[in-house]
């Protein structure tokens, strides 16, 4: 049994939603990063502080798919990824300043989504 620490993720100055508390578990143990260019520094910091594994979600899907994700870090422009991960029950962190929009907006809540996040908004809880 791995011991994971909890982190708090707050919205950036022009962001929306949150704060979220991310607590990885043995079941939800991946900090999945779905951005261009590998692991984003925000995902890496969450991984470092929690002790969970940062996972490049654009190269492959973790075993267990959505159910294995402690959270998803995205660089969504506002329409698609912003809704897909909240809809599937995954706490979602957008590095861009987005607010709920698109056909899946109904699934995006302050309890499961936070945006405008940089490394400064990730702290130990």
């Amino acid at each position, binding site marked *: 049994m791995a011991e994971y620490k909890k982190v708090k993720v707050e919205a950036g100055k022009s962001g929306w939603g949150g704060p979220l508390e991310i607590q990885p578990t043995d079941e939800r143990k991946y900090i999945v990063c779905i*951005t261009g260019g590998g692991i984003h520094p925000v995902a890496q910091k969450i991984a470092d502080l929690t002790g969970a594994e940062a996972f490049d979600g*654009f190269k492959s899907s973790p075993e267990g798919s959505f159910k294995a994700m402690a959270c998803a870090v995205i660089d969504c*422009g506002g329409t*698609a990824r912003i809704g897909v991960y909240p809809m599937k029950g995954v706490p979602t962190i957008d590095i861009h300043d987005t607010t709920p929009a698109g056909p*899946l907006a109904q699934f995006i809540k302050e309890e499961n989504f936070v945006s405008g996040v940089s490394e400064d908004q990730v702290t130990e809880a």
Partner: protein
Amino acid sequence: MHIYSSEIVRIGDQASLFLDEGIVVFFGDNAPEELQDFAVIHKLNEISEEIIVGSKILLSDANLEVTAVGPVANENFKNLGHLVLKLDSATEAALPGDVSCKYDKKPVIEIGDRLEITQ
């Protein structure tokens, strides 16, 4: 000038959630399975230029012309093969990832159809 040329290889089971609202969400065929479910998937090829206002898009049987480009749209396309086309003729992108277009008709997209983007 040539920007991008590809073909549609898959249409996700839930892509209609977006298509019904005049939004075509593209991902490349390297995208993770959980995103492919929601998207129209193109065979990822080399992207030679940025999409700008006035770029022409041939998608299936429809001719589109770009009317607005959001500030992160080209970055998403280049990095992830991810493109969000909105058939709303907007002259200002509503969201940072949007590529808004006017069109001669709404595309009816099927597997094997072409996606051609030119200047």
